[in-house]
């Protein structure tokens, strides 16, 4: 197996996914297959080939610093399960994480 049960559970935790033993076994196998395929790709000689981050050979798609209008607040909040005073309402997160 290319990936351990613990690693699958860690990734699931990061993605806020609940997984039972059956799901862990299923995804361990699937992810293992993907990683094995990566090993196959790794056999290709890529010396002298720059790393690719984009499939398109384009760069610099810019917009100018001009206002383009925003949504009506009712529309912005339309999908919110709960709203109050013009805000989304979420369960309180105890950890006081400062935004970056």
């Amino acid at each position, binding site marked *: 197996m290319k990936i351990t049960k613990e690693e699958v559970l860690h990734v699931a935790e990061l993605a806020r996914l609940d997984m039972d033993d059956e799901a862990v076994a299923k995804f361990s196998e699937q992810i293992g297959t993907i990683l094995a395929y990566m090993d196959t790709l790794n056999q290709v000689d890529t010396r002298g080939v720059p790393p690719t981050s984009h499939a398109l050979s384009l760069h*610099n*798609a810019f917009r100018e*610093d001009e*206002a383009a*209008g925003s949504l009506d*607040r009712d529309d912005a909040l339309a999908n919110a399960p709960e709203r109050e005073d013009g805000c989304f309402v*979420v369960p309180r997160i105890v950890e006081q994480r400062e*935004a970056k």
Partner: protein
Amino acid sequence: MEYVTVIGLEVHAQLNTNTKIFCGCSTAFGAPPNTHVCPVCLGMPGVLPVLNRKVVAFAVTMGIATRCTINRESRFARKNYFYPDLPKGYQISQYELPICEHGHVDIDTNGEKKRIGITRIHMEEDAGKLSHLAGRPVSHVDLNRTGVPLIEIVSEPDIRSPEEAGAYLRKLRSILRYLGICDGNMEEGSFRCDANVSIMPAGSDTFGTRAELKNLNSFRNVEKALHYEIIRQREVIEDGGAVVQETRLWNPDRGVTTSMRGKEEAHDYRYFPDPDLLPVVVDDAWIQEIEAGLPELPDQKEQRFVGTLGLSAYDAGVLTADRELADYFEACLESYDRPKPVANWIMGPLLGRLNAEGETIAASPVAPADLAALLKLVDDGTISGKIAKTVFDDMAATGKAPGEIVTEKQLVQLSDTSAIEEIIDEVIASHPDEVAAFRGGRKKLLGFFVGQVMKATQGKANPKMVNEILQQKLQ
């Protein structure tokens, strides 16, 4: 044991653009919640972020001003984590290829120059704002700030004391404000700082385990939090313990840092290149265009004030720390060409008054041309230096021009020799004991006689002439 402190700072500066980094929503501060949002910054499926050209220009501007290498190609990456202020589940930032690297700024502490390295400057989007409601298990989310452009400026671990950290931050803020790309308001959050701090035994070349400090929302709090944390770490080590690598939150009310538990998992950000955004290529022509538009920066201005205008290093440092203050000083010199008295008047009466009122130079009640006019009245002998202080207070209170105040209140200096002699004769005649004492050797009494003459003339007598005539008559 002696310890050496090692500090590195991460500064987030909000850029002064009209619109967000990847969409056309306004960045204006203080709008009603969730009114500056659109499908892009709300993280709706299927939207495409498009980079604001000005954000790149501003980041490059700061890179040039801090002597960074500008990377000809840079990329955006996704930083993945879940938190309610981040609707997409990831923050668009830069990781492997930031736009600027390997720069530095020079700071001044206790008269000593020191160079602080800048590891990198990268572009990223800000997150939204959470308000925790007292007594209820919920939070309010306002996403107006989501997608507001930031640059993160990461220093090398070159800083060795809280005071150096303060000097470095003030220097960065000064440069950003000179460049006009960030307003540098720490209280409103447009200039934010996190600090990595560790200690190691003196002489060691291996850094200790560091703690990351957050919630440092003023210059004073940065220095206070660092002082606290350094002592805390020393006590942990001296008690036989080990410093744990963790994030700690500064509590300004209690004056302590406290551990933020449960961050280990969250630190796994799984960065990868953002497929929605193309690489950014900055060519030589663009860099040259930005370089050509750079204003004179604080260090250059300081050097010119010392070298060309003859100010002391201290005066030049104070006057150039803030661009508006330097501009005010130079505006005074446009109609009055003696830099030193102008510097004295700005740093003395003017800043004294503004500081007492909690104001900055932008709120100066005296226009530069009026301050220059006042100094001219002193130079040409119309009023004495002492009277000038009174006139200045009047100018600040009423906004009137100095000439007008001098005429209205009849403050013109008394420089008529015979008139002054007459008054001096009266003073001498009415203080025989003091005259005798003076002639007997108590030369310090000269000040007493000057004071009496000034009193008799309501401070209007020309002090130089009073001194000379008194010396003669008391022989």
